[in-house]
């Protein structure tokens, strides 16, 4: 599996270098990851430090992107916003991916009745409008970062589980699994040594292509004050602050929207390039 993975990543890297757009996506994504990781060192100010005397400042040498309605440095807030966005996106898709693998293998490998039941649940969830589902869960649990992560998991798991289930079903019928069974291998061995490595790699591409959607959801719900709570900087609530101050400081809106545009574009370009290199059959998703 290790050699397959490294061959996969080498193919991906070669394809990326040949694809200008994919490379651009890679650079943007790498920049945002660096911003998220090194936020305390890169950000010129404390993102929460209020300085009302200098509110709505236009860009200057001391504040490259100006300040917001409380005089907080906008650039620092946006840099920390990358931390929030990527932190939530990676945590949520990571957990969702693991749950998807677990449930997908159970459905594909387990008894028929369990499969039928799980598929019904998956299909019910995927046939709902995503945002409606999110709003319903938020009403019950109350807005906040934990709820947001939970919502993203609920929305994404059925799709991943469906994907893993399909992969598992086709693998279970393959000759090498049959051979293992004939040799009286335990179910655990078949699942851990044969199914898991074969299905997990595929799912990674799907996960990476979903990241822009998750970033969008986080920002969108935070924009509606239903996600990350202020004062924690999130691209969504920064954009909301800017929107409220639209007429006083139009510049703030222009800057506050940029990271979202760049991040969603960057992740999509990168995801598309990886998809083309590794598995061209996958489709770009849109929000339901």
């Amino acid at each position, binding site marked *: 599996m290790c050699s397959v993975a490294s061959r996969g990543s080498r193919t991906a890297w070669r394809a990326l270098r040949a694809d200008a*757009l994919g490379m651009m996506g890679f650079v943007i994504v790498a920049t945002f990851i660096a911003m998220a990781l090194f936020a305390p060192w890169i950000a010129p100010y404390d993102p929460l430090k209020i300085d009302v005397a200098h509110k709505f400042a236009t860009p200057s040498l001391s504040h490259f992107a100006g300040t917001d309605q409380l005089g907080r440095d906008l650039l620092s807030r946006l840099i920390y916003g990358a931390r929030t966005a990527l932190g939530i996106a990676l945590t949520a898709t990571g957990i969702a991916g693991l749950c998807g693998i677990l449930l997908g293998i159970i459905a594909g490998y387990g008894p028929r009745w369990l499969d039928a039941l799980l598929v*019904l*649940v998956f*299909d*019910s969830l995927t*046939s*709902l*409008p*995503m*945002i*409606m589902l999110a*709003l*319903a*869960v*938020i*009403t*019950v*649990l*109350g*807005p906040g970062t934990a709820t947001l992560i939970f919502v993203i998991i609920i929305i994404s798991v059925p799709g991943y589980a469906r994907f893993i289930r399909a992969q598992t079903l086709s693998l279970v019928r393959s000759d090498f699994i049959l051979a293992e069974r004939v040799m009286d291998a335990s179910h655990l061995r078949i699942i851990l040594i044969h199914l898991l490595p074969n299905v997990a790699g595929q799912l990674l591409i799907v996960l990476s292509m979903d990241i*822009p959607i998750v970033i*969008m959801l986080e*920002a*969108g719900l935070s*924009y*509606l*004050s*239903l996600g990350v709570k202020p004062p924690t900087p999130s691209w969504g609530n920064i*954009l909301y602050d*800017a*929107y409220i101050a*639209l*007429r006083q400081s*139009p510049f703030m*809106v*222009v800057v506050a*929207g940029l990271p*979202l*545009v760049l991040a*969603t*574009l960057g*992740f*999509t*370009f990168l995801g*598309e390039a990886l998809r083309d290199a590794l598995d061209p059959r996958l489709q*770009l998703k*849109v*929000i*339901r």
Partner: protein
Amino acid sequence: MLNYAIKRIGLAVLIIFLVMLAMYAMVFLVPGDPASLALGPRATPELKQALMESMGLDKPVYVQVWNFFRNALTGDLGYDVWSKRPVADMILEVFPQTLFLGAVALGTAVVLGIGLGCLAVLWRGSLADRLLAVLSVSMISVPSFVIAIYLLLIFAVWLGWFPAIGAGEAGNVKSQIQAVILPAAAIGITWVGYIARLVRASMLDVMGANHVRTARAFGLTERKIVLRYALRIAIIPTIAILAVGFGSILSSAVFVETVFSRPGIGSLITGAVLKRNYPVVMGAVLFMTAFYLFVVTAADLLMAYLDPRIRDVLRG
């Protein structure tokens, strides 16, 4: 066909039932009761008791679930916690606005998307084709509420061409159309990109088909082949996703209606979620889910009626 129809409709009804059951289950699994959450720190025991009773929360869970479904079937979705108005009335009052917004957005997206897709096929392999591909992906990936805010800033605040808020004066068609343009553009742009990509891909498949080759052998111009022969077949997958598109557009309306302060089901739900106004959220979510499933199921049945191959998929 009848078999297929029964299965599809049965599945949709089952899903709606499961959704509402799950929502009820969540309400009861979560610590803190809806009444004190809605009332917040002002809750006195008497107020809470009154609210619990008015929301029917004092009865056993199965009675509540039963009542909810029985009432929902007769069009009674309960009452707003604060204004005491029937939720069904509130929904029906604003739903036409959302429907209008969605229809304008999807209609425009279909026309523009098919147009761009055809252009990309006509110019396939050229620089313009590649630029269109980048443009389509960009339109798909940038969030609609960010586009909405930029459109608002440029065309409403700076240029002043369109109103920044509201849905136009009631009865004044011109002002209503002016007010719908920016929000519709913000929601529709994702689908312009999506449809353009879809049309391009399915048309490129068709371009290798026998009847296209024959048309070419007859010496028809490329434009005529694309528009008259390829498009007719390539458009089928596009029609198939329009129902899903409509549902998704109605969902994105949640964001865009808030940006433009437009009355609509989206702003109704968002406001209710913020105040944890359970009956309104439950009723509106049920309504939107049912509407979405209705559109998607109807489209599926229509496609299955037109193309028997689709029916076999469910059977297999």
